[in-house]
């Protein structure tokens, strides 16, 4: 892959460039927003902090020159998933102020699972990309063309598998909603 622009000699941790500093700062902001999102007692605020966290992730993608992924992130997560969450909250229960039942007894289990998956992911990513440096001055490496070519040449099989999975989910959703309708009629 073109991303693997080998370990360039002048790169190091002690003389960070502007982009690297921005990356770290945005990362901290994203992490903070994510933490507030899971700890706040106000349901709708949690959803809105989620917007900040997901938007921060999109900025991180941009800084890593993965333009296409960044905009897809905004389109799918900020534009659709969060709107769906807010829609659900408004339809059911979204009081202004604190929600007394916003706390879960599974808090410690959740923390354990989150910490475990975070450690695993960080470890895997650090191990895999330890010496990889992205050349920022050259041509954009995460452009639509490169992404498309990589996706449909090297990763066609996972892509197709995922599309089958999505299709199954779609069919499942339709079946579930129809079943409910029939029961309503019978009762």
């Amino acid at each position, binding site marked *: 892959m073109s991303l693997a622009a080998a370990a360039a000699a002048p790169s190091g941790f002690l003389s960070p460039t502007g982009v690297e500093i921005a990356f770290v700062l945005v990362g901290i902001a994203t992490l903070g927003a994510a933490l507030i999102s899971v700890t706040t007692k106000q349901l*709708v*605020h949690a959803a*809105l902090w989620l*917007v900040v966290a997901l938007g921060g992730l999109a900025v991180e993608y941009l800084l890593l020159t993965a*333009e*296409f992924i960044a*905009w*897809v992130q*905004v*389109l799918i997560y*900020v*534009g*659709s998933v*969060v*709107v*769906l969450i*807010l*829609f659900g909250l*408004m*339809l059911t229960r*979204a009081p*202004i*102020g604190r929600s007394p039942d916003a706390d879960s007894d599974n808090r410690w289990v959740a923390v354990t699972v989150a910490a475990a998956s975070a450690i695993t992911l960080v470890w895997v990513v650090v191990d895999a990309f330890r010496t990889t440096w992205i050349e920022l001055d050259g041509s*954009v490496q995460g*452009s*639509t063309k490169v992404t498309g070519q990589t996706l449909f040449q090297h990763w066609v099989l996972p892509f197709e598998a995922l599309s089958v999975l999505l299709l199954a989910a779609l069919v499942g959703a339709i079946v579930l909603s129809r079943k409910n309708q029939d029961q309503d009629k019978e009762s």
Partner: protein
Amino acid sequence: MNDILDVALRLVAVLVVFLTFPLLVGQAEHKVMAHMQGRLGPMYAGGFHGWAQLVADGVKFAQKEDIVPAEADRRIFQLAPAVALLPYLLVLIAIPVGPNGFVGQAIDAGLFFVLAVMGVGVLGSLMAGWASANKFSLLGGLRTAAQLMAYELPMLLAAASVAMAAGTLSLPGIVDAYQWWWTPWQIVGALVFFIAGLAELQRPPFDMPVADSEIIFGAYTEYTGLRFALFLLAEYAGIVVLCGLTTVLFLGGWHGPWADSVGWVWTLLKTAVLAFVVIWLRVTYPRLREDQLQKLAWTVLIPLALAQIALTGVVKVVIS
């Protein structure tokens, strides 16, 4: 240094367009509606056709007291107008006006950028609807969300059809690749895109979320003064963006006679004609009911958009 100056100038130009064009559309709407409905409206301020009434309205909005309801969630209530308005400013940066780099910033995945950021604007309406602590506002917010989720899909599919035809996601690239026969070839996609865009902007006949006879003014009921004006401005900025995008994607942008020298005039002209159509539709059609809205999106627009994608694919394979 030159680069920085270039970028700064472009951004200033985009900002000027963002501050003036929506007002022009707003003024045009007042006048066109007045003439179509055979009523005059304010005709004295400033002399010619009462043009200065717009300025007077602006002064009025700025003077009004900015009220936040006692029960409202203050911070979100105050933040909502900015969230509704700013995405349109960002989108304007990516819309090409003329050939040879006459664009705020050419973005590689421009089409995705534009659609993604436009979708964020709706969050402003949702925040306003929830934070107002008002049943009517909440209903308006709910309807906004339902409408967005229904119409986002056909809009994306129609845009994807153009991207397939052009073989690129870059907006200047799409206009560069444009041929005159694209317009008849993509006409179904164009209609779907335009209608879905109107619905996303909550323009009549898709203004169920702000239906004044049922829920006062939907999510914006509790707003006064400048914050209310910002929501109105967001609607008109949305019209500019939608018409500009439809022009760029389906009507060939700057293509026309003498495109090299006066290409930007063609883009503006096509955009203006589309904006006129938007206003025309407002005074022509009655409001669609909520179930009719959803039915139109899921049973008419999405199948049409899918058919358009199939047609685009077939023609693309045949001619290549």
